[in-house]
Every structure is written in C-alpha cells, then in structure tokens.
C-alpha cells in the first residue's frame, strides 16, 4: 500500500500545480508596444518631489524584473515628438476617487503613447513606497498589463487600499513578470 500513498502524494502535487495554472492572475489590456521600440521605451517624468522619485524608482523596478525581455527606459527626446513614449505627471485632483491613472493610446493592438497621472491630492499624504505602489501599478498598465481584483496580492491590484495597505506591494511580483513574459517574452 506504500505505492498507493506515493501515488496520492504525486496526485496532490499535480492538482496544486494545475490549479495554480488555472487561477493565474495577470491580465492584459489587449494592446502592447511594438518591437521596436520595445524594450527601449522613452519616458518623460515631469512630476515634482516624492512623486518624481517614486516614478523613477518604479521605472527602475520594472527594468530590473526577472523577465526574458524586460523594458529598458530612456528619457524621451522632446525634439522628436513622434517618438512613442510614456509621459508621467502629477496634477492635484480632489475631484476624483483615484490616485493614479493611465491613458493608453493604441491602434490595431499596438500602444504608441501612454499618459500617466499621479494624483498629488492623495499621494501627497502617502508614504514613499505607497506612492511607488501607484507609480508602479500605472507603469504596469503602460506596458500592457490589465487590472487585478482586490483579493490578489499583486502590483496590478486595482485598489491602493488593498495593494499597499493590506498586502504591502509596491514592486512587480512574479505574476506581473509572467504577464510581461507573455507579452514580450518571445
């Protein structure tokens, strides 16, 4: 009967692995950067103070993910206005319920411009890594990743109150790395 016990253990491992495969979290927005320019993406960061530092840290976080083909950011050249790029800035907006947003301009499934806003009305009251969780989340959208539900401890969790306050996430997780590998890995 020892053999039956071993079979049961092997079966339980298989079920766990298969279940993880079925419930993987990452989603995409249905558009991605063409290659080129990916992985060489231009960015402009015109935020001030903490938001500026947080955005720079998040750019760095995304560049250093353990993916097959991670993004490689460089400052956008304003003399070349047609260069596809990501713009990040930080208005003061008490009129909305979000602390960050990305407008993704795409055509035929290809992203050509992303404008990220970090809402200073909220982020001015956040600690540094909480701002970083917002900038990192928006950069995830800028790369083509979609939102995740409140219950998931991942950077693409849609709510800062869960993503950071509950789960303490401010950098890309393996889930986001898997998403980037799907989009740009091969």
């Amino acid at each position: 009967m020892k053999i039956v016990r071993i079979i049961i253990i092997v079966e339980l491992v298989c079920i766990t692995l298969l279940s993880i495969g079925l419930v993987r979290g990452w989603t995409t927005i249905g558009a991605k950067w063409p290659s080129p320019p990916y992985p060489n993406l231009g960015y402009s960061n015109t935020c001030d103070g903490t938001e500026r530092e947080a955005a720079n840290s998040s750019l760095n976080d995304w560049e250093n993910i353990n993916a097959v083909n991670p993004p490689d950011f460089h400052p956008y050249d304003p003399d070349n206005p047609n260069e596809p790029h990501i713009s990040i800035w930080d208005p003061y907006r008490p009129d909305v319920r979000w602390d960050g947003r990305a407008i993704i301009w795409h055509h035929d499934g290809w992203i050509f411009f992303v404008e990220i806003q970090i809402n200073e009305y909220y982020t001015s009251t956040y600690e540094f890594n909480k701002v970083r969780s917002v900038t990192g989340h928006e950069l995830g959208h800028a790369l083509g990743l979609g939102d995740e539900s409140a219950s998931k401890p991942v950077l693409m969790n849609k709510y800062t109150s869960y993503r950071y306050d509950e789960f303490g996430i401010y950098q890309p997780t393996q889930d986001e790395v898997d998403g980037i590998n799907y989009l740009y890995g091969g």
Partner: protein
Amino acid sequence: MRRKLISNKSLLLIASLLGVLITLLLIIELTLPLEEKIKETLIHTTAPPTTSKGMVGVTTVSYVRAYTLKEAYDTADLVVLGRIIYSEHYVWKVKRPYRGKTLTFEEPYIYHRVKIIKVFKGNPISNIIIVAQFGGMTSRGLVLVPEDPPMEEEELVILFLCGPCERGDFVKYPGIEYCYMGVFGRFKVINDRVYSAMYFLPEEIGGIPCRKAAEDILKDLEGYKDVNGITIEKFLKLVKG
C-alpha cells in the same frame, strides 16, 4: 497494535478520485482558449474605433479604495435624483516644462448641468447643479474610462456627489461644481426603476467593453448587484442599510 486510520480500500478510492480530478483539470487546462485564460480585459482589438477622430484612449485607474453601495452613500455629501439637461465639453490644456521644451497635455472634462428632481441626502446649492465628469474628446481622440463613460443629456440619474469642489487643477467652477464617485456613485433610472452601472452601461464604446468593466469592479462589492431594476424606494432602503 497500531490501528490503521484509513483502510487500504479507502486509500485506493482516494487515489482513483484524485486521478479523475487531475484528468478533469487537464481537460480544462487544455481546452480553455488561451485568450480566455489571459482575460484581455479592456480592448477588443477586432472592433474598429468608432469615434470621429478614430482613436480611443483607454483610461485605467488605480482607485484609492473600493466602496460598497452603503459606503458610497455614506461618503457622499449629496445624493440626488436628477435629469442631465446640458453637457458642456471642455478640454484643459496643461503645459509642463521638460528638458528646455514644453510638453502639452490635454485633459477632457464634461460639466453636466443636472436639474434636481428629488434630494435624498444633503442640501444642493441650487435646483440646477454642475457635475464634473472626466473624459471626452481631445485632439487625439476619445478619452474613455470604460467603467464610467460619459453621461448623456436627457439621462435620468441618481448621483452620489461630493463637494462642491473649491479647488483642484481641473475645477472649472470653484464652489459650485460637484464631483461624483464615478462607477460607485452613478445610477440610471429607467421607467422608475434603478440600475447600477454593471447593468445599464452600453456593452462597448469604440471597441472598448464598458458594461463588463463596471461589472468587474462592482460584482464583488456589496449592494450593486441588487440594483437591477429595483424601485427608488427599495434602492433607498438598500443604500441606507
């Protein structure tokens, strides 16, 4: 003498059942289309944009927090039933210095005039109020928040409002302009029945799924699922808990 907790027969049965379960999981894994597993949530790449400018900028947001229906009601300063009588489209142009040049950003807004029919909470500053909604047409194309596409003139709505807003980079009418809580505080009234955004939004605009975007946000939050063609009285009972 040690007694066996599980008999050999039971072990064989468990092993067989687990084997069946693995087979089922394998079948699901192999037959589920890749697109379904990946869940491309926002953009139908097959549908062409239908706006006059030809482009749609999809807006994805990081919400500060989630609101149940009751929490949204409790947070609001003003809750009204009203009709949108006029929608003013406006694009803010913001310039930011960058490496010796200037970057220009366009921020589209719609400032709706809402004629109040009934007040459920708070005191409005007049019987026609201004409600600001982010989104609209820019020189690049339509900027759309999938779960909160533009409200339209003649729409009969129940809105959870905050304000009036005194200041903010995009506050056009300081002191008289209300902001609302987006997908958490926007309801449509059709034939005296109330619907939450997960039921009344159009399936898609310009190839962007709207109703599903609202459903993805609201379905797990208490209260919104029940706002599917209920009377205003029942709605009020629901929001007041």
